[in-house]
C-alpha cells in the first residue's frame, strides 16, 4: 500500500513537514504545495531535513505555487522534482491513499 503525502504549510510556522518526513514510509512520495513549497528552497534552515529525506522519499513540489511566491526552479534543492497540476493528479491516482499533513 503506497501513500502520497502532501504538505501545505510553511516549515517555519508549523511542524507538518517534519512530522510527514518522520512518519512517511520509505519509498512513499511527498508533495509540497501552497505554503509548503518554502520547505524545498535552497539555503533555508529546513534544507537539512529535506536533503536527508531525499534518499528515502521521492520529493515533489507544485510548480505553480513556487512561481506564485516568486521562486524559480533553480532555487529548489537538487533532487526535488517540480510538477504541474496534471502530474499532481497522476500522483494521487498512482498511490492507494493520500495523506494531507495540514
Amino acid at each position, binding site marked *: 500500500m503506497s501513500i502520497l503525502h502532501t504538505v501545505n504549510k510553511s516549515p517555519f510556522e508549523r511542524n507538518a513537514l517534519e512530522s510527514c518526513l518522520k512518519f512517511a514510509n520509505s519509498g512513499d512520495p511527498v508533495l509540497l504545495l501552497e505554503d509548503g513549497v518554502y520547505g524545498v528552497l535552497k539555503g533555508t534552515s529546513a534544507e537539512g531535513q529535506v536533503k536527508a529525506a531525499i534518499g528515502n522519499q521521492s520529493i515533489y513540489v507544485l510548480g505553480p505555487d513556487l512561481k506564485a511566491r*516568486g521562486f524559480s526552479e533553480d532555487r529548489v534543492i537538487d533532487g526535488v522534482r517540480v510538477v504541474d497540476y496534471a502530474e499532481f493528479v497522476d500522483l494521487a491516482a498512482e498511490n492507494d491513499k493520500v495523506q494531507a499533513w495540514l
Partner: protein
Amino acid sequence: MSEIIKKFLYLNRKAPYGTIYAWESLEVVLIGAAFDQEVRLLFVDDGVYQLTTGQDTTGIGMKNFSPTYRTLGDYEVKSIYVDRDSLESRGLTKDDLVQIAWEDWETEEEIENIVEVVDAARVSELMEESDVIFSF
C-alpha cells in the same frame, strides 16, 4: 481631519497566498495611510516572503497583490523594515526583495528604496516606539 497623529506599526508574520493575512494587512495599511497617520511596516518570520520579487500567480488563479507593495511610497508610507534573522534563516537576501521608492511631492526629497533590513534589537525598538501595533 484629525490633528492627532499616531504611530501605527503593522507587524506582518505570514507568507502570502496560503492564508489571507498578508492581503488583509495591505488593505488596512492603505486605509491607515489615507487617514494621515504615521505608518510603518515591519516584516518578520514568514512575513518576509510577502516582499519577494517576481511573484506570478497566473498558475494558481489568485490575485497577485505584490505590485501594490511597490506603490506604498505613494501612499506616504516612508518606513518599511525587514528582520535580518528571518531573511537569513530562509536563505534570502535583500536582493530577493522588492524595492520601494519614496518621494515627498512638496520638497522633492527622494529615497530610492525605503526597505531597510534591521536586527532584532531594532525590531523591539520599533514595537516600543509605536502607539498602536496591528498584528497580521
